[in-house]
């Protein structure tokens, strides 16, 4: 029998899980939440290509989501073009602008790149606020329901299925890209720029690729977010979201596709769970505090992130276990005679 690749098995399993809400009949707020997990998962996945694989930082990635959101609203409601086309354009335009940001990365490194991208994020958010013709400023714009070949996606369950399909396609794309020439070039660049160059890797080319691909993912996520919430306004795309993306990737696991999705789920679900804890619910912003603590704990104790939890624990406690086994063997707890 031919071996089925793991990636295909995971994709099919995810797809089956995406069908569950149709039968389970979950409440609408919960469905909205699950949708946002998937959408942030897409954005975090793109961000992980940039941060985890290519080792480049961006603290303004939220505006690529914002750009995708506004573009999609404009394309579907003003230009009356099909939704599928608008998903694509909402990815491609941020991709081009991402490449421009990548040019900055050629000159800047580490902290300086972080500051520059932060500035970029703030500046573009300001453009969202001021460019009334395109964004309607603080009043925001309303987004229509997605319409795919005449099928109008109105329910949260349908939307969830659509978002999961997009996530699967983009995960497979990332998985394939990262395990071949491009992925190796990105990792090589992160691990040693000198050696990467000596092996023929153009830093110029691959920094631009890293920034533009991750901006594409963010743009697509923004488009999906806009049509889910059906409203877009400038304050959604601030520094908090950019930092949340960073937290998702670090907590979930740097340089890991599943890590991005686990991280997105963690960051999105934690505030909702805390809201329902009896004592904690009275503290304002307790979820931000909690996220911060988790971030510190993960960096200190699980630097590879939650997605690789098992492997890390195994490694950490391997010694402990082996000592434990020796003791139990000694005292007859081992194999029976």
């Amino acid at each position, binding site marked *: 029998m031919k071996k089925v690749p793991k990636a295909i098995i995971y994709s099919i399993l995810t797809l089956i899980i995406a069908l569950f809400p149709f039968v389970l009949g979950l409440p609408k707020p919960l469905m909205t939440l699950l949708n946002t997990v998937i959408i942030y998962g897409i954005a975090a996945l793109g961000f992980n290509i940039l941060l985890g694989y290519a080792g480049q930082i961006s603290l303004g990635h939220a505006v690529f989501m914002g750009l995708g959101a506004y573009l999609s609203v404009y394309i579907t409601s003003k230009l009356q073009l099909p939704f599928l086309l608008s998903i694509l354009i909402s990815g491609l335009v941020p991709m081009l602008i991402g490449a421009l940001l990548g040019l900055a990365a050629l000159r800047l490194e580490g902290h300086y790149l972080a500051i520059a991208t932060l500035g970029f994020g703030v500046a573009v958010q300001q453009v969202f606020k001021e460019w009334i013709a395109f964004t309607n400023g603080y009043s925001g714009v309303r987004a229509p329901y997605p319409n795919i070949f005449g099928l109008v996606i109105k329910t949260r369950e349908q939307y969830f299925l659509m978002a999961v399909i997009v996530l699967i396609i983009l995960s497979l794309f990332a998985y394939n890209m990262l395990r071949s*020439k491009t992925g*190796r070039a990105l990792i090589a660049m992160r691990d040693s720029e*000198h050696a990467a160059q*000596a092996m023929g890797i153009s830093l110029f080319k691959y920094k631009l690729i890293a920034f533009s691909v991750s901006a594409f993912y963010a743009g697509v996520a923004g488009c999906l977010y806009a049509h889910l919430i059906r409203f877009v306004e400038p304050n959604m795309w601030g520094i908090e979201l950019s930092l949340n993306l960073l937290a998702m990737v670090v907590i979930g696991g740097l340089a890991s596709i599943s890590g991005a999705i686990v991280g997105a789920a963690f960051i999105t679900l934690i505030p909702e769970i805390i809201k329902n804890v009896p004592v904690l619910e009275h503290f304002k912003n307790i979820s931000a505090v909690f996220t911060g603590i988790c971030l510190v704990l993960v960096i200190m104790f699980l630097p590879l992130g939650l997605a690789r939890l098992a492997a890390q624990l195994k490694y950490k406690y391997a010694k402990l276990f082996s000592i434990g086994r020796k003791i139990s063997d000694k005292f007859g707890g081992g194999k029976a005679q």
Partner: protein
Amino acid sequence: MNILRVENLSISFGGLKAVDDLSFTVKENSIYGLIGPNGAGKTTVFNCISRFYTPDKGKIVFVQSTENGLRLEHQLTKYKVHEVISKGLTRTFQNVELFKHMTVEENLITGLHSKLKAGFVRSGFFTSSVKKEEDTAREKARDILAFLGLKGIEKQYAASQPYGIQKLIELGRALISKPKLIILDEPAAGMNPKETASLGALIRSIRDTYGVTILLVEHDMSLVMDICEKICVINFGKKIAEGTPVEIQRNTAVQEAYLGKEEQNA
């Protein structure tokens, strides 16, 4: 036939002349050593050839023999760092520069970067041509690993290997793109005499098996004297001697550079 010609190379950092009007030529299929006391400018020359530095003056000509017997002369100074490898010239680093978070096999395949054609979109869809390319690349990596005697560690992480093995992996990564000239930056650094001796044998067998020319920048005299056919000695950025190992050992200028001048007795 020469494969590399360095002509009147000069470079200075601030006021310091690191390399001063240096010329030498490397014959095809030879093992050529570049030696000199600490701070003589060896690594600077090396970095000029591999294009990490741009010389102030002088020419670096690399002669590429193509498959149909043509000989192309490349002015290396015209190329960018990452373009050099596609001309048939690769290097290793003084302090092993492996990609730590990749497996041994991936490290080697990264050495093939300039030969692989898949762009990022085609890679993303993993078309059949990409798959084929990846498979052949993996095979090549396994061949090289077998040659280096490193079978069985393909899937292990490069960072988890001992230092000596990491050096071999780096050699393999330089070798996999089938270069015509490999420049090695202090390959014997941090090795004991026994390891150094076997490294010497390996370098020779790489030259013989793959038909590459080797340019060696080295501190370890035993290795240089053992394997190099011709040696160029530099001090304070200037060439002070060139010749066979025996000639170099007898050369008084070299002895002075390394051991100091004998006091003139009245």
